[in-house]
């Protein structure tokens, strides 16, 4: 669901919302009441010399408003809307709207509604919370620039084991998957997914979370899509800082039309980051993406690989604001030729959060 508007309308809506939220209300004085937050993500790119200067820009990428809180003694509710710019016009769209409960089934959270599918690390988190500015190629190709959201239901359970294991399984209607400008079409098999996670406590307040993810759907044209992926987060924390962080994902996808040959691709990224000074972090994002079974018309295997490097400097004065600078080199290897530079550009990001921010997953 999208609502068109201009930039003035977005600013007006945001200002009005902030004004309303700042007024004392019964809910805000209730310690178990409605919580709100606003997140704004402003991003700019400056292409390198010799590239198309018209691609330079600096503008809000996302402006989100989220509300969450208890509905009653059993249920919690979550509503999130976001504004994006497309083709020079601003669109408001519903990101998340769901109810959830952990009170009905022991050690299990159930939620129902529209939400970002909890597969992979990036897909499960809002873009303004990512540790880098731009989506790796595997994320863009498999899940879109921001991630997959859909409507359905999901169960997440902590297994009754001494070592922590968590299993999530869900099914969503699957009328759309990825970037689209329409309501989609009823699939032959709806989207269904599973995620299996475990966590390891490490010395000196470190931790490692690793997950295996799987997803499948068969769309209205009988095209069968299967995704399998692994994601990991390794980090150490000292008070409010992260001296070291390593985030990585590896994904494989198969797209098989009915009675046609499947098209397969593999992509991965890893992002190590260290602290260099108070509130200042240095990381580097490397990602690679490649269709794995591409052949020419004579049946000969061919190579088509994309990779990129993006050293990233982050200044994080608090958990409510972030400033980033990066430089990206995109390389491509086509067919029998060696890797060549496709594009390079400077990236700038500024994000801020107003209001209560929900607790982060690890």
């Amino acid at each position: 669901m999208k609502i068109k508007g201009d930039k003035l309308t977005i600013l007006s809506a945001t200002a009005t919302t902030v004004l309303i939220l700042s007024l004392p209300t019964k809910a805000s004085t209730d310690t178990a009441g409605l919580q709100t937050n606003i997140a704004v993500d402003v991003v700019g790119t400056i292409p390198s010399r010799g590239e198309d200067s018209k691609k330079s820009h600096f503008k809000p990428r996302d402006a989100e408003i989220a509300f969450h809180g208890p509905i009653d003694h059993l249920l919690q509710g979550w509503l999130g809307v976001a504004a994006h710019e497309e083709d020079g016009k601003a669109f408001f769209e519903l990101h998340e709207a769901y109810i959830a409960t952990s009170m009905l089934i022991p050690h299990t959270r159930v939620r129902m509604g529209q939400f970002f599918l909890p597969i992979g690390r990036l897909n499960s988190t809002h873009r303004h919370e990512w540790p880098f500015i731009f989506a790796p190629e595997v994320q863009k190709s498999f899940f879109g620039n921001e991630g997959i959201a859909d409507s359905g239901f999901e169960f997440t359970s902590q297994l009754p084991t001494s070592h922590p294991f968590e299993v999530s399984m869900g099914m969503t209607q699957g009328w759309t998957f990825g970037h689209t400008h329409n309501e989609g079409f009823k699939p032959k098999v709806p989207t269904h997914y599973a995620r299996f996670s475990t966590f390891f406590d490490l010395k000196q307040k470190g931790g490692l979370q690793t997950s295996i993810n799987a997803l499948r759907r068969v769309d209205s044209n009988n095209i069968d899509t299967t995704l399998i992926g692994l994601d990991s987060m390794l980090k150490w924390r000292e008070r409010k800082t992260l001296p070291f962080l390593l985030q990585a994902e590896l994904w494989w996808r198969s797209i098989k039309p009915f009675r046609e040959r499947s098209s397969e691709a593999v992509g991965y990224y890893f992002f190590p980051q260290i602290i260099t000074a108070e509130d200042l972090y240095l990381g580097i994002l490397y990602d690679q993406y490649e269709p794995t079974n591409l052949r020419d018309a004579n049946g000969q295997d061919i190579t088509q690989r994309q990779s990129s490097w993006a050293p990233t400097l982050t200044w994080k004065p608090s958990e409510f604001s972030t400033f980033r600078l990066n430089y990206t080199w995109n390389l491509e290897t086509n067919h029998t030729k060696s890797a060549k530079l496709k594009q390079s550009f400077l990236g700038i990001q500024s994000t801020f959060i107003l209001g209560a921010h929900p607790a982060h997953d690890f």
Partner: protein
Amino acid sequence: MFYKVRLFLSITLLSLSLISCSKDEANSAENLTGRIGSTEFIVQDSSDLRFDGVSLRGSGTAIAKLPADEIAGEKNFELTFTLNNGGVVEIKAFGNDLLQNAVGIKFSRTGDTLKVELTNKTTTLDISSAFSQLDANSTLSLHFDVHNGETPAHIIGWTSSIQSPDSSNSSFDSERDEDTFGAFSGKGEGVYWGLSLQDSTVSQANLREVKFED
């Protein structure tokens, strides 16, 4: 006597071999390869399709040697062609290795009338009104984005005179007029692209990066 019979049989066998070779030479045009500009094509099914060093002319189907992209990819297809009266040029994108189940943009000429159709496995949609400014008698130069990662595939077309293409200056956008073009569903089900000609000439056929990025 025996010698004469053997001679007769040898001449007969030799004649049959020569006839067979001639047929093979004619049929080998099915594997004819050539270039239109920098793009290499392989003729698939016709002996009436010929490369003349700068263009492809005649009637038949030719597949580009290199695939367009992976099945969920997106590319821009640049085409310059001339239609004889009754001629047809169709660009087929993201089809299988026989160019079946592709997204097609088909141009047909009848007299002074140009008909343009959008095709896929199950649908043929008349989009001629979006190209009413084109002269069917002249050499036509256009380029099309096919975003096959979306469902349905998102197709945007421009005339080559547009210097900075975007969705606002396109002649055609499959998502712009949902009343008319919302009838187009589906997408290409392969990775290959190529051309289908009938009594026409194609002088440019290039694969580029998309002009419009969502």
